[in-house]
């Protein structure tokens, strides 16, 4: 059976980014930017909020000792989630 990737996954992750930063990184910028979150103004405290919100929303455990580099942009997070079968239906 073929699985389909949830097409709005990038948008959902970008909304979590905007929420974690209280909008200092807006949805549109989060989706479009290929710069790291730190480069577009996300602080370390907001990053903690983002990781927790991803864990809560998708019921996954993110090991930052191993997967930190997969958490630097929306695109990378989406790829990480897809690798973990999140967003497939």
């Amino acid at each position, binding site marked *: 059976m073929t699985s389909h990737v949830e097409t709005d996954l990038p948008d959902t992750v970008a909304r979590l980014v905007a929420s974690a*930063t*209280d*909008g*200092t990184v*807006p949805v549109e910028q989060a989706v479009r930017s290929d*710069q790291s979150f*730190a*480069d*577009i*103004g996300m*602080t*370390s*405290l*907001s*990053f*903690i*909020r983002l*990781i*927790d*919100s991803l*864990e*809560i929303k998708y019921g996954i*455990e*993110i*090991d*930052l*000792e191993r997967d*930190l580099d997969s958490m630097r942009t929306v695109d990378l997070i989406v790829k990480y989630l897809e690798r973990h079968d999140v967003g497939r239906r």
Partner: protein
Amino acid sequence: MSLISELRASLSAHSGAHIIDAKGVSSFADILEESDRKAAALKTSGVRRDSRLLIQTANYSGYVSTLLAALQVGSFPILADPSLGAQEVSTLVQQCGIDHAVMHSSGPSFVALDEMAFHGATEFAGQRPALAPSSILGRLTSGSTRSPACIEYSDTAILNAARGWIAASGLSSADSSLCCAGLHNGLAFNTTLIPGLLQGSDLIFGPSVPTAGSVLRSIAANSPTILVAFPVIYEQIKEYGDRLSPHALSALRRLRLALSSAAPIDGDVANYMRNTGVPIADYYGIAETGPVTYNDGLVPGSQGLPLPTVEITTVSDPAGDHVLAIHTRSMGTKYLNYPGRFEGSLTEKGAYVTSDTGTLNAGHLILGRRTGATLNIGGRKFSAESIRAPLLNYPSIRDCHVVQLSTPTGRDCVGALLETDEVLDLNAVREHIRSEVAAFKVPEVLATAEALPRSSSGKVKSSAVRDHLLSTFTSRA
């Protein structure tokens, strides 16, 4: 007895106690043996009794053996936040006369000290400020100075801080502390590292990026009796709400103490933790005085009772605010790199005049607000000037004003209004600041204006700057 003698005697007496980090488990006996090896390595590389040794690494078991080795050699260790910017480290090295360093990254002539850190000589050469005769260790504060100030401490001050804390918290060899604060920080140093080593408590170093999820998993895996964490961790645990797994909830409830510090705990968060069965114990302390009060979590809104021998009074500062003046037996001696500044903040009786307003209510300290231009973001305190200076180095920024803001969800953050005639790439400005100062100081909210709002006397109006920066949230909505 000196700090190093006390620590070595205690580690020998509690040789079976453990330090647990991401790499594994080390006994106190292992740590002692490792510290002997490192002391020899430091001596071989030229560290002497009068050396000043910067220790700038994250938490791991090797941090403890490195610190013991530095003290054993007789050098003056200076504990620094690993997130300090390169420019801040360079300034510190020159101002404090730091001739050797232990870091995660390798310098030109650095060699491996263990699997996580390198050590070697810095490029410092020249005259250096004198240490007080009793000083044996330095820690940093950025509360009121342009660059981090190094506070000198004596053996007695450090041991008094630890013993005061042990008495208040009842820390014993039956405890194991999960520490999610950096060991360079007063929260970890004064309540966990030194007291834990003296009492033979197990020390568990939490994840390097402590999200609530990873902290909860560490609690479930290690069953600590004490959690030491900044407010953001408790705020995030609350976000889990009823999605906490029964296993995590059960482990959380086995904590006998959940300790927070340095920034006020949100009332909803405090209530959530209390209802969960784990009230947050707050404490108040500042780098210059060491621990001041302790609240076991049962008196909401209070920073707690003064620790034994601590004296708290209030005095009027130059602006007419009634600020706390604190005398402890764990006070620092002076700032190594800002001569006279510490001494200038003491009353005639030797109490340190803080920037915090507050009152004593039935003996309990109720903190008010902070005066002056000190910012407090998630428990990290630093001066607005420490950000203003590097901002002004950026091309085409004529002037700027840095303030602390609350985001629409009530989170504290740093904002800066930049006076310029140019259209600035604000991400490039952030990148510039990040190369100069620690990441947590980089302004989250940046905006530009052709002119800063000023009063008729020419003074920048902070409230107007704050309004301008807050309007950027509205425009994003």
